[in-house]
């Protein structure tokens, strides 16, 4: 279980690294939000799954803790993409122009 937890958490950290690089390197608002939204949600979910594996061996009541973390995953899975959508929509209405290859 600990090995599985290690694999999941390091996968999540790699996704976080990708998110950060995308946030810094992508050319315009929309692609940066794309990197932030997708990478952030997935890596958080994967890291929390790793946490479930990590605590699942500790004591009789660890399944309650696991259930709580599953609920957190559920809400992150709903809340984070919605927030990304709201920010994208706001950017669109504020007039952020998408990046084009020939324009730059």
């Amino acid at each position: 279980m600990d090995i599985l937890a290690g694999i999941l958490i390091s996968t999540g950290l790699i996704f976080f690294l990708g998110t950060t690089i995308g946030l810094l390197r992508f050319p315009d608002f929309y692609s940066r939000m794309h990197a932030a939204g997708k990478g952030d949600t997935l890596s958080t979910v994967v890291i929390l799954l790793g946490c479930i594996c990590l605590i699942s061996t500790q004591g009789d009541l660890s399944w309650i803790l696991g259930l709580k973390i599953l609920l957190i995953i559920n809400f992150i899975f709903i809340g984070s993409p919605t927030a990304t959508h709201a920010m994208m929509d706001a950017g669109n209405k504020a007039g952020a122009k998408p990046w084009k290859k020939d324009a730059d």
Partner: protein
Amino acid sequence: MPSLPIWQFDVPLLILVVLFAVVALSIRNLMGTAIVFGAYSFMMCLIWAGMGAVDVAFTEAAVGAGVSTVFIVSTIYNTSATMPPRPGGLPFKLFIGVVVTLTGVFLLSAIPDFPKWGEPNSPANATVAPYYISNTIADAHVPNIVTTVLADYRGFDTLLETTVVFIACIAIYSILRVDEARSKTEDSGPVDAEPHYDPSDSLIVRQASRFMVPFMQLFALYVIAHGHYSPGGGFQGGVILGASLILVAISFDLKFLLAQWREKQIMLMVAWGVFLYAVVGLGCVFMGGNYLDYGFLNPVLPGEQDMARSHGILLVEIGVGITVMFSMIGIHINLASNGHFDRGL
């Protein structure tokens, strides 16, 4: 048991906190400052959680990073995100610099007088804390010592804190609320002419918040009721309840919220929370005890003296929760609608 605080976590977090403070002061756009302050609060929350003060961390996450960021953003919505140029020439700046440096030096000079973190012989740890730790189960049947200290041993403090929240809400009402009948000046809503984003346009945001809000409120009730056993209590649960209704106000419409809670009802509920707290205290007096001595409520509440104290704590936590929840909603509506209670963020 690893020794707390874990300095490998704490040192980077403290450096980040200082960095965030500097960044927040140097950003010229106030919206950016608000967001950086939110991040600052989250870092402080992590530091407190690392020190083992989970209740404080919880409050900071709910109040500092959550609701107050929303308050600042809705204030910016009704004013302007650009900062005016700073006043004063070089002498003024020098004067400010000297004052700030002197204050900092005085504050830092007090550090050697503090006891070390976790020092067993410091006054706080040597006198009352051992009594709380060894007697909380016998006195009130509450495993979470923070809750017992907050609502029972230090019940007067918390009563007055709740009153402070109540007074703050009244103050914001009296400053911001516009009396439509009496006001002659034409105030045309937000000063900013920029195109504002209205989240209530988006079906996705509305549906997501429609799904989330009941669970948020359920969690808030759990936080209030389970505060005896886990971190939480009236303040945190009240703020989460208020935040859930603020989410409704943002993602649907201010009118949608005001159709369910009218202004008078909100203000009345703010007062009812403090009233419930005070009445529980008075009840103890009528039962023959001191003010807020919940043990004397055991003819009314189920259980023996210790369980009666536990239930008394629950009652006052509910009072705190009601006051905090409705003050948060009232403050948000006032800030978002510029005191008009019609439309806004």
